[in-house]
């Protein structure tokens, strides 16, 4: 699985060290710098409503990346994502509420709990594949949600556990802007971890397990180990996302972790494009913003007032339709559209790629 060449033409890797660079060309370095500048200036240019939306996108990106690692890269279908997020959020909530532990303890604790549950979620994967695995993770989702609900009721937190904003380096993370940067950094770190995992032995092992488990076993990959590893890594990242969610929203309540949340995350990786980290990011952006876009579009339609009562039902239905359209007409997802657009500009004025070009 050789690393694909960077897309700008005329660039060749000339030394061994070149193979290991994350950023290979001056052009992409410039683009990255511009991108970072845009990210940093965003909260100062837009109102806090948009900043909050962006923060939600970052949070969703962490969850989407970890699910992509598990499902899109390692090929292990999971429908227990909301359960894992709930586990992370409850870990943070309980540790905060019962033991008043600070941020820098609860987040690693959530990661540990996530890893533990990852092993639990992963054990069935040693025997089950595909749909059956998905169903077993679904069952575990219900069990996690049940336990969370029990805790809430037994301790009398019937409207949820309230959590104080975390204090990082003596600075209280509370404002939208502060959360924007915190979550942006968290998402960037997750992305960095994911990119490097993909370039490592484990990433290659996951891809080969995805492609063909039997062959992977035959060429000496410890399928059991790497499957479990995929679950552990993905689950602990997801649980961290859950803990961040708890702090970000300032509370934890079991109603927030319905099956619909899982569906949204699965929709992210499908709509974004299976098997691609960029796809996970694009999917997170799309699915998070979609309800707002639809709402906005419907409200500019003539006669929107008359629809008022059913407009929300319409939003809901529209989400279903868009998902269907993506699944039917663009199985490659947003990333497929993105690649076509990019190729068009990279290759212009030519229409086809030369042999051996990037897929």
């Amino acid at each position, binding site marked *: 699985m050789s690393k694909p060449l960077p897309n700008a033409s005329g660039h060749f890797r000339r030394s061994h060290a070149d193979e290991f660079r994350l950023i290979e060309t001056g052009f992409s370095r410039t683009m990255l710098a511009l*991108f970072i500048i*845009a*990210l940093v200036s*965003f909260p100062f240019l*837009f*109102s*806090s*409503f*948009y900043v*909050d*939306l*962006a923060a*939600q*996108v970052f949070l969703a990106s962490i969850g989407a990346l970890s699910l992509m690692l598990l499902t899109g890269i390692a090929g292990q279908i999971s429908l227990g994502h909301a359960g894992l997020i709930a586990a992370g959020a409850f870990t943070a909530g309980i540790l905060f509420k019962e033991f008043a532990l600070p941020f820098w303890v609860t987040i690693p604790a959530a990661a540990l709990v996530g890893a533990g549950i990852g092993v639990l979620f992963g054990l069935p994967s040693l025997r089950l594949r595909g749909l059956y695995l998905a169903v077993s993770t679904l069952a575990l989702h219900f069990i996690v949600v049940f336990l969370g*609900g029990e805790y*809430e*009721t037994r301790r*009398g*937190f*019937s*409207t*949820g556990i*309230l959590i104080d904003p975390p204090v990082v380096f003596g600075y209280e993370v509370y404002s*939208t802007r502060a959360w924007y940067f915190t979550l942006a950094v968290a998402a960037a770190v997750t992305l960095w971890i994911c990119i490097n995992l993909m370039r490592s032995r484990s990433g290659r092992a996951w891809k080969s397990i995805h492609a063909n488990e039997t062959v992977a076993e035959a060429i000496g990959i410890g399928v059991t180990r790497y499957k479990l590893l995929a679950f552990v890594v993905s689950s602990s990242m997801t649980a961290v996302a859950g803990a961040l969610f708890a702090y970000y*929203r*300032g*509370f934890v*309540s*079991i*109603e*927030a972790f319905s099956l*619909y*949340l899982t569906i949204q995350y699965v929709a992210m990786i499908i709509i974004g494009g299976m098997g691609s980290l960029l796809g996970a990011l*694009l999917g997170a*952006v799309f699915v998070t*913003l979609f*309800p*707002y*876009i639809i*709402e*906005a*579009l419907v*409200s*500019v339609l003539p006669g*929107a007032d008359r629809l*008022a*009562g059913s*407009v*929300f*039902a319409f*939003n*809901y239905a529209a989400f279903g339709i868009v998902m269907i359209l993506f699944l039917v007409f663009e199985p490659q997802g947003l990333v497929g559209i993105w690649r076509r657009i990019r190729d068009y500009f990279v290759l212009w004025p030519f229409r086809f790629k030369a042999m051996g070009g990037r897929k």
Partner: protein
Amino acid sequence: MKKICMIASIVAASFHASGAMAEDALKIGLTGALTGPVAGTYAPAVEGLRLYVDALNAGGGINGAMVELILQDDGAEPSRAAANAKRFITQDNVVMMINASLSSTFAPSIAETSRAGVPLMFAASACPQEVFPPANANLFCTTAFGAKYDSHAALQFIEGQAGSDIKIGFQAMAIPLSRGEIDYAEGVAASMGMTPVAKEITPPPAPDYSPFASNISDAGAEWVWSWAPWGAQVKTFEALRRLGWSGSYVAYAHLEAESELARVHDETFYLVGANALFTENLPVMQTITAAAQAAGSSYAANQLTEGWIAGMVIEAALKAASDPGDAGSVRDAMSNLTVDLQGLRGGPLVWTETNHFRTTQSYRVYRWNAANNAIETVQDWTSFDVE
């Protein structure tokens, strides 16, 4: 990110386009569970509020200023409720925010509005602890039902009917709010000398309620107190009757109560409620019915009470405010407000500095009278002081 910017600008453009139409209107933002499985509880109330505001505007608004009610769906999801709240506050500059959704959306709504100093009113959603004395300065609640007081009212009614030497069963739904209330009621019943014999907690969607009902029936309960969303209350009751159980059942009169009493037509199915039913046919009820018909509403007029009351409170608050365009001023007006509910409840709704629930909470008990083929008030307004 380019993509985000692009989409954001599209969204921004369309928001501005829609927002530009009423610059000097008094804006009120509502986040509600308008879709999703629990929508049935909240959507009719929101419809009632919408109709009230329409009527208010048709009558000239508040001193000539229109009231713009901005509805946003949160599907009972906290993330969307938070985003809605942010939008109301930063984008629309609302003078008041309303929450008509599941309790999971409370925390983000409270956090956003408190910071901005915008009053938050709960309408049709459960009243949180913070609105009871000593009340949080920023939070208000018009919702009819109130935790603990409901159970007291119901248990007192039962005591009045059958004394305290009875076996009593309880029913709740497997959501924290309902379970908490029923646990509380169980304690109160025991302290009143009643014998709690069964407590059944049903999952939100039980395909068949008979197994739960069997437990209550087998335990020999003579009375049952049920405090849960409507479906769970009435389906447990119907399952009990099918099992041949002949005891009396007391449940909370949610907005479905009126049509359901007629449907169930059982004389020992009592509903404890804080809202008046439309059988009374008060003038205000005729107004609501006319408004619902004119708008072609998909909900029965008798389900709109809760929203209508919220509308009356909003109107009163905006009228009382020295500057209805300023959130702080509206909040101050709400902290000292008396609203005549024209008979929709047992008395006026009174908010004071320390009490944002209401100073007295009144309950009626209804049942179906087979002889008259009509709903009958078994016990007229009984008041409880809220302290």
